[in-house]
């Protein structure tokens, strides 16, 4: 290799080196941080809600007029839905996981100790919830039909049981979440709930919620004329059942409107729309930048080769093989790129620190920078192959030409 002479020659032509090295450094900074943001978002999006998302949909019914009796309608609707072929089960719920809207509260181990409350999403559901949401009970028992409380929003709550997500149980009993079973936990108003069961996983409705894995189920149906049904189907039945359920609910003789008939997959898409938008934009940015940088490398390489055609001919005359010439320009690019990625590594970490501080994003994993460095070295080599090959094709006879 000719690292020494190549480097010394490059140092006589600092501007070209600086231009390419800076481009590579900026490109690396953007690409590595963009990939990291994409991965961060993808990891968020990949967190399972705990439900059988592919085979679940939900639909809301809002009654109006004096003749609407929600308590009767709910039973009628749920009976109808549960008997449809292809339906595994259905429940009524006040909130849909991943949807972005719901309600939360705090619960703790001692009454009146509001400082110890652990935040959790509250799902008000009936006894079919475990089947309908496809939750695995890892301790305790399901709700029974007798435990379901029906009340209007202004009636006092009488619920006394709850089922926790395992993460919620772990928040309350960090040493052994199983201890939560059969314990009483207390809400902000001091009311007690007895933990009758624990399910393996159930996300809160808000993807950005700090305590996104903390959820509680309570056996109650709120009679405020607005009801949301969550339906789980056999694989392959979802889409036709969405149509059928809406039709049947619409033809039932009740004064109501039906809204938000959505598959849970659609709900998830909507909830994470900004994340996937961001991901797409970043992918476009990465592609564009790699293209522009590669073009820049090609452009400057072609220029510097054209400027040195006679030198190349002379080198060929002095005994350089085509491969030596190819290797010369590949090595030259490698040296410039190495300077670029070294600066790039510093800038990458710096920009990441900015992201961490300004946007509370997690720190970049250690392996991102080295992988980014390798990727850009490779990009540089690939970009310079073309110009280097054309340099290698220069005839040695050029050395004796007088122009």
């Amino acid at each position, binding site marked *: 290799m000719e690292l020494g002479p190549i480097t010394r020659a490059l140092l006589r032509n600092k501007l070209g080196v600086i231009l390419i090295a800076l*481009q590579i450094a900026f*490109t690396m900074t*953007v690409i590595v941080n963009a990939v990291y943001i994409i991965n961060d978002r993808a990891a968020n999006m990949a967190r399972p809600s705990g439900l059988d998302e592919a085979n679940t949909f939900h639909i809301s019914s809002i009654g109006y007029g004096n003749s609407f009796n929600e308590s009767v309608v709910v039973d009628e609707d749920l009976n109808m839905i549960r008997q449809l072929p292809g339906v595994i089960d259905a429940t009524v719920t006040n909130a849909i996981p991943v949807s972005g809207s719901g309600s939360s509260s705090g619960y703790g181990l001692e009454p009146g100790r509001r400082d110890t409350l652990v935040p959790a999403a509250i799902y008000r559901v009936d006894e079919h919830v475990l089947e309908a949401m496809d939750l695995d009970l890892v301790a305790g028992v399901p709700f029974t039909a007798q435990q379901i409380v029906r009340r209007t929003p202004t009636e006092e709550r009488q619920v006394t049981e709850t089922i926790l997500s395992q993460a919620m149980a772990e928040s309350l009993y960090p040493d052994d979440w199983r201890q939560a079973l059969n314990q009483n936990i207390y809400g902000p*108003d001091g009311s007690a709930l007895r933990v009758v069961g624990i399910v393996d996983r159930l996300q809160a409705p808000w993807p950005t919620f700090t305590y996104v894995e903390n959820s509680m189920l309570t056996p109650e149906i709120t009679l405020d004329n607005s009801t949301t049904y969550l339906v789980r189907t056999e694989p392959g039945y979802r889409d036709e059942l969405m149509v059928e359920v809406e039709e049947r609910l619409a033809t039932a003789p009740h004064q109501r*409107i039906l*809204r938000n008939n959505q598959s849970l997959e659609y709900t998830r898409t*909507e909830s994470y729309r900004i994340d996937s938008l961001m991901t797409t934009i970043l992918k476009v940015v990465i592609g564009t930048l790699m293209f522009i940088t590669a073009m*820049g490398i090609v452009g400057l390489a072609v*220029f510097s080769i054209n400027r040195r055609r006679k030198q190349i001919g002379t080198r060929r005359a002095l005994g350089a093989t085509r491969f030596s010439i190819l290797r010369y320009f590949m090595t030259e690019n490698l040296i410039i790129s190495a300077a670029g990625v070294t600066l790039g590594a510093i800038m990458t970490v710096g920009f990441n620190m900015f992201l961490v501080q300004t946007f509370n994003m997690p720190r970049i994993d250690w392996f991102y920078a080295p992988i980014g460095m390798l990727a850009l070295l490779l990009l540089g080599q690939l970009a310079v192959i073309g110009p280097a090959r054309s340099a290698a094709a220069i005839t040695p006879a050029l050395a004796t030409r007088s122009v």
Partner: protein
Amino acid sequence: MFMYYVRLAALSYRRNPILSSLMVLAVAVGVGAYMVVFTLNYVLGGDPIPHKSDQLYHIQFDYGDPDVADFEPPPQLAYRDAITMLEQSSDFRRAATSKFVAILEPPGNDLRPFFVNGRGSSADFFAMFDVPFQYGNGWDRAADDGQRQVVVLSQELNERLFGGADSVGETINMDGHVFTVIGVLDYWEPTPKFYDVNNGPIDTGEEAYIPWSLIAGQQLRRSGNTNCWAAPENSSFEAFLNAECAWVQFWVELPDSQSFDRYQTMVDNYVAEQRDFGRMQFPVEKRLYDVNEWMVYNEVQPDETRILSALAAMLLAVCLLNTVGLLLSKFLGKSGEIGVRQALGAGKGSLFIQHTIEAGFIGALGGVLGLGVAAIGLEGIKILLGPEAPTQWITINVTVIATTILLAIASTIIAGLYPIWRACNINPAIHLKTQ
């Protein structure tokens, strides 16, 4: 002479089309991407009501939960405070406002009942926020006090219900209550929705507006973010209204510094009084925020666009570094021509102008192409934002067009400074000899 140099620039482009196109492309991509982000930020970080944004103030009270260490005071008011502020601010334009939802039963039998998102607001709301009316007007404070069942429709809802005709005087039925239409809005979709930032700053506006007092009167169902830091005494609606639950936006218009000072004193006194009752124990930095301060305080500008701004700036930097290199190649590649021009009497000044115009020419082409890049980018973002988000605000306006072209020309010339300098200082002798 200018046109001569432009022609030279065009000729130079044609002589070296690949290198020149590469430069135009780099400038276009860099500037185009920057303008996409600029447009997003221009709207989301811009002033939604420039002529009076410094006169409209939202109140932030010293709410807090003694048991929660890092409790952030919610950016809304509790009902009881909103009521008191309405009373105590009656010298000024002021509005308490919050959202509601209702089932609307359209007049006649042609349309099925449907769900509407509405807003309850005090009478001054329309005047304070310069809400444009197509027909009729808003209501007056007497209607607030009297809980009159009047409604102002959005342009879209009026279109849906009455085919866009002047519907003032018609009635509509929401949740079983009859409301008289007294006004219809013109198109009004401020982005960000600055008057209610805590229910999503990029959100479609409400379809129906009614006196806010009707919400507390429980005529219609309240909606929107609600944040409680003490449990209501019981489940009744009265207990909820009295509880430490924030769900009301409250705006006041203070036209001059005198009224601002007066109002500030009033608010401070109120907080001091409430503190004696054991409420509002957690001092906030500031209690009156004007529109722009409020948007910054509530972080209306999404993290995403701020991150993208930084990335777009770096993308632009790469594209310009690229342009520096390519311009350098191009200018030094025609050293011979420059040498001949110098020999024929071209001074450094005229070489400078010639090459500046050549750089500007490439920048201008890049700018025009960059507009296309920006348009495609924004269109893509609209598609990706999906059907449920309002996207009318994502448009290329005159500001964006002008900024794009100017940015492209200016940045290309700046990128060209060093190459131009080199071109002007080429030694004619060397290059004439080797010709």
